[in-house]
């Protein structure tokens, strides 16, 4: 059974749920003058929830994530992030909202001029933390994702899988309130994919809201979490028991 977004919201209001981490109200998006790639999306993410975003290639998964991590503005509709209406939030406030979001990009987007260690530490540096305060956490996390021996390596010397793990480490190092991942297991083997999923679920268990865009059916099945399915720019929400 699929539920539309309006029903989903009505449930929230009926049960008096806490303020959602993210809320979309009739949001549409287009690139330039092209047709809309996302149409009238309305949904919300509760604190501590875990969702997959699925859909065929070109369905708008990455575009949806871009809207959430504030890389694009909607062409229509309202987005509320951490209780802030993004249409009225001043530009100077956006960095502080972004610091609460961790993003794993499909194409990694590592800074090629920085070492693996510095790439992972980037969100902490930007948040104003000193090297002495974060180096232990970064080293530990890098060891956990299997990059303990590659701290001083430059991204260009890393394999695709290593880059993927580096990008994930960078996204989670700041313990974000909202974690977005675009095909996070696309370049790793099954064992590492399972470890990455466990990491995401562990973060989710301690309160991080997680959204993963993926084609990996096995990961979706294993996690048994709700799915936001995009088809031709429109969104449907599937609860795990409904699949």
């Amino acid at each position: 059974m699929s539920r539309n977004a309006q029903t989903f919201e009505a449930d929230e209001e009926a049960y008096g749920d806490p303020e959602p981490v993210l809320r979309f109200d009739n949001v549409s998006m287009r690139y330039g003058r092209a047709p809309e790639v996302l149409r009238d999306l309305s949904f919300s993410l509760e604190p501590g929830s875990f969702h997959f975003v699925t859909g065929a290639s070109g369905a708008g998964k990455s575009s949806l994530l871009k809207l959430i991590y504030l890389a694009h503005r909607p062409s229509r509709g309202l987005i509320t992030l951490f209780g802030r209406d993004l249409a009225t939030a001043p530009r100077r406030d956006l960095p502080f909202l972004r610091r609460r979001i961790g993003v794993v990009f499909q194409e990694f987007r590592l800074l090629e001029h920085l070492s693996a260690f510095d790439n992972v530490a980037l969100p902490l540096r930007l948040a104003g933390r000193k090297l002495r305060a974060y180096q232990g956490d970064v080293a530990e996390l890098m060891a956990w994702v299997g990059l303990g021996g590659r701290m001083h390596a430059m991204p260009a010397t890393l394999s695709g899988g290593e880059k993927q793990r580096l990008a994930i480490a960078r996204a989670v190092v700041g313990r974000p309130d909202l974690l977005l991942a675009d095909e996070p297991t696309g370049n790793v083997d099954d064992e590492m994919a399972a470890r990455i999923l466990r990491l995401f679920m562990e973060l989710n268990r301690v309160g991080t809201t997680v959204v993963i865009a993926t084609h990996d059916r096995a990961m979706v099945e294993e996690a048994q979490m709700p799915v936001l399915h995009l088809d031709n720019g429109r969104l449907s929400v599937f609860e795990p028991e409904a699949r």
Partner: protein
Amino acid sequence: MTDAPAHRRPGPLLPPGQASDAGLVFVVAVLCFFACLTALAVGSADRAARGWRTDLQGSATVLVRPKGEETADAAAARAAETLAGVRGVDEAAALERARAEALLRPWLGSGDLPDDLPIPRLVTVELTRNSPAGAAELDKALKAAGIDATVDDHSLWVRDIVRAGLWARGAAIAVFVLMAGAAAAVIAFATRAGLESRREAIEVLHIAGAEDRYIAGLFQIRFGRMAAAAGLFAAAAAAMIGAAARILGGGAGLTPVLPVAWTDLLLLLPCPLIAAAVAALAARSAALGLLKSMT
């Protein structure tokens, strides 16, 4: 095995400079160099003008016309004696006929002049430096002594020199502002180019939570340092030229219009700071402008 990160220093957040940055340093250095030369020239010209003005204001010339049976020499001598007694006059001396003729030589030629040719007689007056007598006081004293004379206190020349000095200073300031504007435009252009070429990295910084002013600050520091280095090179080069002019020309400089003094070289000291400040402001404002166009 895990690498020990304890000794590490975080790498620069902006991707390293590009080959075009060297060209930028050169352009800014050239602009700073010309600004430094302008400053040196203005300092020297200003001192020359001040010297001339002091010389002119410290003296006066009196043209004496003999009356009645009195000879020109006697009238000039009497005028000199009268003027020497005026308060604010240090010394007054009648110019001898030979010197007066020498002054007329460019117009009358070097041949012997007839004895009866009425050569105007001049009295040169050295005025007291701190409280010089004015033209009116000299004129009054001469009239009181019954001497027909015209006093020239050089005020016409002084006005011209002051005006010329003001024009030179104004022109120098205009040149300096143009140089600074050109440097700022070049830096702003380079900042925009730098932002565009590093757009990918800037977007990552943005998404990771960097504020616009933080990213602009990175460009501000980079271009500020670059311009400071360019300003330092330019000031050093201009100082070498100034020193060469001082050594070759001595205190009078290479021309009387530009008497270089060692203290003039102090004018070059702020160059790196001014270059850095102009570049930093230009880079910051260009970066902030462009960042606003990014989401």
